[in-house]
């Protein structure tokens, strides 16, 4: 009996560990090129233990951005350092980091905490040491906020956003979510639509089904997801509110109802329907359900996505014999081909700045994620993983999350827009696929 209890505990431990670390990111390439930064563990000014270390979240965020490489905590000349006033600049004079993030957390009432943080331009501070100094010269930012116990991770991401934007000039995308599909073929109801914070924490199930779920796509306000469900033994497009759980069936025509993509104003969906024969791209008004056909060709036309101005769609078409990416202007219906390099190019989407397109490229039979500069038409293959598909661009345009295969299992991976930083998101149970990165939240 005692033994049984032990085995049960052991069993439970095994069951819970992978669930917690379900999407913990493993960086596979590109740390060496990152910019060194010092993140000092935030100083806790309470008598009970600190609920959570906010600076751990900031360190992970900055590491996962691929842009920064936080220093090892043991290499910091000063710890227990919460503000610039306590900073011993002499001790920091030889530290090879461009900036320092530090802060304090103290209890502020029932389930309330006062968080202070400061961002220091260390290079500037080092240049001034010895001479007359004005702290405002190298204090890049400082903020004071009251948060609840449940907001530690969220506020950590907020700090990361501020640090990232101050140091790079690009808005941080740490306070974002990802939606994806998990398939456990051994389960009775194998298909699950999930959302999690961009870093895999706070994983939540939105829908579970015995039949396939596909192609999740975010509404521009980050509140709704459109997806394909086969729950009625046929493909149908649904829109689901992630807060109220309210589901609306948008299309259920005979044949394919697939590849939904929200228009930038959030009022329409570009979708693929095959009700009139071959798969064609349509635009459906979500409120009225009115549909308008966009493409008209005997070959396959599918997986449309919008240009940021909402005036055109890019889509995959076989009209040239093999899948390639085309653009159609909605007002005129004029179609132009965008990709020519490689055997296949498909599943394209345009970056938020409208300058580049990310898609799946097949060269020598290998499927990888590629990026093309829309002006120069220069194409770069970003990944070296296997069977890559479903690329989704971060709302700040710096990173792409995509589905790939690792050790015979479908997993998610990320690659920076320049292809230098690569990371993998390992999984516990089942296959993980079809990631969709949310807009800014």
């Amino acid at each position, binding site marked *: 009996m005692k033994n049984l209890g032990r085995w049960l505990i052991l069993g439970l431990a095994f069951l819970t560990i992978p669930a917690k670390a379900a999407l913990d990111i493993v960086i596979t390439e590109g740390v060496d090129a990152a910019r060194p930064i010092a993140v000092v563990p935030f100083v806790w000014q309470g008598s009970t233990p600190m609920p959570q270390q906010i600076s751990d979240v900031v360190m992970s965020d900055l590491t996962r951005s691929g842009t920064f490489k936080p220093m090892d905590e043991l290499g910091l000349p000063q710890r227990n350092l919460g503000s610039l006033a306590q900073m011993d600049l002499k001790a920091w004079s030889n530290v090879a980091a461009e900036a320092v993030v530090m802060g304090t957390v103290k209890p502020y009432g029932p389930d309330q905490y006062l968080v202070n943080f400061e961002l220091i331009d260390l290079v500037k501070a080092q240049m001034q040491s010895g001479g007359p100094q004005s702290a405002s010269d190298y204090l890049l930012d400082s903020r004071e906020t009251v948060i609840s116990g449940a907001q530690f991770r969220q506020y950590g991401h907020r700090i990361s956003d501020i640090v990232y934007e101050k140091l790079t000039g690009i808005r941080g995308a740490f306070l974002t979510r990802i939606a994806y599909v998990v398939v456990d073929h051994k389960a009775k109801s194998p298909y699950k639509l999930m959302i999690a914070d961009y870093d895999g924490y706070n994983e939540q199930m939105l829908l579970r089904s015995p039949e396939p779920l596909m192609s999740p796509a975010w509404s521009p306000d980050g509140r709704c997801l459109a997806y394909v469900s086969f729950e009625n033994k046929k493909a149908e497009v649904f829109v689901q509110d992630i807060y109220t759980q309210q589901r609306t069936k948008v299309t259920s025509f005979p044949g394919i109802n697939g590849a939904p993509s929200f228009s930038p104003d959030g009022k329409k969906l570009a979708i693929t329907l095959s009700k009139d024969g071959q798969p064609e791209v349509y635009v459906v008004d979500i409120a009225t359900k009115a549909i308008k056909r966009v493409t008209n060709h005997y070959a396959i036309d*599918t997986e449309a996505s919008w240009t940021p101005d909402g005036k055109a769609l890019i889509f995959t078409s076989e009209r040239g014999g093999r899948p390639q990416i085309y653009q159609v202007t909605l007002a005129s219906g004029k179609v132009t081909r965008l990709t020519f390099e490689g055997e296949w190019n498909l599943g394209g989407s345009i970056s938020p700045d409208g300058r580049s397109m990310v898609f799946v490229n097949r060269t020598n039979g290998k499927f990888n994620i590629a990026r093309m500069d829309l002006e120069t038409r220069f194409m770069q293959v970003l990944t070296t993983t296997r069977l890559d598909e479903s690329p989704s661009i971060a709302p700040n345009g710096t990173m792409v999350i995509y589905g790939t295969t690792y050790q015979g299992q479908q997993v998610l991976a990320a690659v920076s827009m320049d292809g230098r930083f690569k990371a993998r998101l390992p999984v516990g149970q089942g296959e993980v696929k079809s990631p969709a990165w949310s807009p800014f939240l």
Partner: protein
Amino acid sequence: MDLNKLFKAMVVALPIMAISACSSTSESQTDATSSMSGSESSEMNAGGGVETGGVAPILTPEEQQRIKYQELRKEHIIYFDFDRSSVSSDFSEVLNAHGEYLLEHPNVRVMIEGHADERGTPEYNIALGERRAKAVAKYLQSMGVLPSQMSIVSYGEEKPQDFSRTDDGFAKNRRAVLVY
């Protein structure tokens, strides 16, 4: 009805006869080893110690054809080449068997599922799967099967049959499945 039973019996009997014919040598070897070691199976088979023999009934060509089709209909998966949706001649006999059955039973409905391997995007593969299912439907329709007897669904790469992600595995996943 009696005729139907007879066919069923033959469907069972014929393959058994075929197997025993092919593997007679190996079986006798097994018998020899088992009798030497005095295994349980020989004791269990001891029973009354009798053996029965029989001959295959004489079949008309129509009956032979029926049995053949019945056998073929057990095969309900049609495989396709990479990025192709044309029905290979290897599968025309299987589809003929299904087509004849559907022609004889106009009240029977069949669902044709189209599937793709995991290469390419899930959305493109849905289109490819549908084209394969449609190719099968078109084949059956050309035999005279009513469109109302057939429905189509494409699962793309969402329901693989083989999870190995090797070339052999991909080949098993590029398929159309007839579901009655």
